[in-house]
């Protein structure tokens, strides 16, 4: 079983996030991190491999993959700490400014390259990246690869060459199955990610990250990045700060003050 987990380096959710003048997500190594929801994808992949019998496990591998500049290695280091076996970064200046389609094309091309080395059975992603929150790249990667897509899994099982997921949509619970290979995304309800293991934390610092170029994965520079982007940010600005909060300390009439505020602002 060979499982590829595409992961993303995102600004820390506790940091002051923003955009560059060019309309791109501001990223720095100092406040960058492994997208928290990708930890669930790594955990799901590790659990699938750990459930295999000994001989199958010996030939199995969980591979972390990211697309981005050298700072994105921080996300791969965290994936190593959690227990992935190897890590790849597709890094190329031409990738800057990719929209969801360019990103999906890049991820899919890298998966294809990994698949040519040794067959990939599953691609597992987190449900969303906590910067863009689009939740569409997984679907687009599946479409690029021509593989079945099973997204937003809150339960995931892999047995006899088949993947089955359960997911909760608003008002409905669905069960979907597909033969392997397949592309899956998991929510944060699917499992509880493990804490980094101390031995792995030490080892993660020096583990090898294989860097791929666009040429290595057979993509032309104009197939990704700003050159291929089908939309652009024409304006961006931090929202003006909210006016100072109007704060009331309840001395028996706090609820009346609240009601009066809502009525005064025509919100009732």
């Amino acid at each position, binding site marked *: 079983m060979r499982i590829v987990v595409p992961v993303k380096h995102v600004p820390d959710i506790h940091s002051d996030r923003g955009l560059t003048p060019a309309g791109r997500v501001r990223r720095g190594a100092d406040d960058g991190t492994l997208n928290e929801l990708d930890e669930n994808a790594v955990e799901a992949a590790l659990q699938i491999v750990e459930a295999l019998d000994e001989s199958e496990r010996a030939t199995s591998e969980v591979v972390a993959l990211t697309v981005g500049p050298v700072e994105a290695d921080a996300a791969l280091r965290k994936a190593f700490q959690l227990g992935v076996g190897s890590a790849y970064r597709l890094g190329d200046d031409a990738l800057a400014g990719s*929209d969801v389609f360019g990103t999906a094309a890049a991820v899919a091309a890298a998966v294809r390259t990994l698949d040519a080395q040794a067959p990939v059975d599953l691609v597992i992603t987190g449900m969303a990246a906590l910067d863009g929150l689009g939740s569409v790249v997984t679907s687009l990667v599946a479409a690029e690869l021509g593989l079945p*897509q099973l997204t937003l899994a809150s339960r995931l099982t892999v047995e006899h060459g088949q993947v089955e997921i359960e997911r909760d949509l608003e008002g409905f619970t669905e069960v979907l199955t597909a033969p392997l290979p397949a592309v899956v995304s998991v929510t944060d309800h699917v499992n509880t990610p493990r804490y980094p293991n101390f031995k792995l934390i030490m080892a993660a610092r020096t583990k090898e990250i294989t860097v791929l170029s666009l040429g290595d994965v057979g993509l032309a520079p104009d197939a990704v990045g700003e050159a291929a982007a089908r939309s652009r940010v*024409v304006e961006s600005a931090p929202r003006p700060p909210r006016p100072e909060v109007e704060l009331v*300390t*309840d001395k028996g009439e706090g*609820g009346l003050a*609240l*009601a009066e505020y809502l009525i005064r*602002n025509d919100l*009732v």
Partner: protein
Amino acid sequence: MTASPRTVLVLLDTPADGLRSPARELLTLARSLGDVTALALEAPSETTLADAASYGAGTVLVVDLPGDASVGARLAPVAAEALAAAADRTGADLVLLTSSFVNREIGALAARTLGAGFVYDTSGISLTESGVVGSKRVFAGTWDVECAPTTPRAVLTLRSNSVVAQPVAEPVVPGVEHLAVEPTAAATAAVLVSRTAHATAADQSGRPALAEASAVVAGGRGTLGDFGPVEDLADALGAAVGATRDAVDEGWVEHDAQIGQTGVTIAPRVYVGAGISGAPHHRGGMQASGVVVAVNNDPDSPIFEIADFGVVGDLAEVLPQAAAAIRAHKATQG
């Protein structure tokens, strides 16, 4: 500045039992942008057709899928193929959907096929001389961004409560047309084994659905498990009930009520957070709300930093008092 109107295709979310408010809002916006055709993935009821007419859809295009259409249409890749085929049939240069996890997937996959630009979760869509522009709030509502597709065609999703739904003055009966779609093998490679409706909190209480409510009252750890005061104020306001991840994990409320980056993202006109400290994950799901009101007994709670109005106090006393005052006010308004 005049911008040329577009041929607009709108995917209807709930064709069976009448339109829900996000679809009405979307049709209201769509008809300000051009000629509107609505797409139904399942045969619409009379109620839905009448609704679509009330909000300005001149034509309803119904997708005919082979086999059990109600199953296939639920798969995002199948729905996306139908949407792309409908865009080609109508010559639509603007394709609009409401924002939901599934609709974002459908929109992105259709845009991929159409070679169209894709902008998701907009809070406004306008036509300018240089083309279509989608307004977005990003990073938990802390940044405003204008996104412009650079392609002749564009697919956009619109968040709930972004516009006020308004019926047209004189609805016409929309023309109904059919479009046969044969899904590709790739689109049906994942099989829908079962689909079970579960009663949502909104169904059981008669309150509006969280994702589309214009007012939301949410409770967190500070409720100590008693959502009675939260529900009381919600009912006085006609609001939906929401919750933090903590409250859901404790089993105090159902999963459907979870507001946050991995739960429901909301942007109601007014949000009231009670007993909620304001952790980043929750803020990410509600910070784009119009007016933020917070009730918490800890004056140092981070939620007060993003609130317009706050009460430092015990929610079990503040909320019922507010609810009673609002009911009294409503009674005087007749």
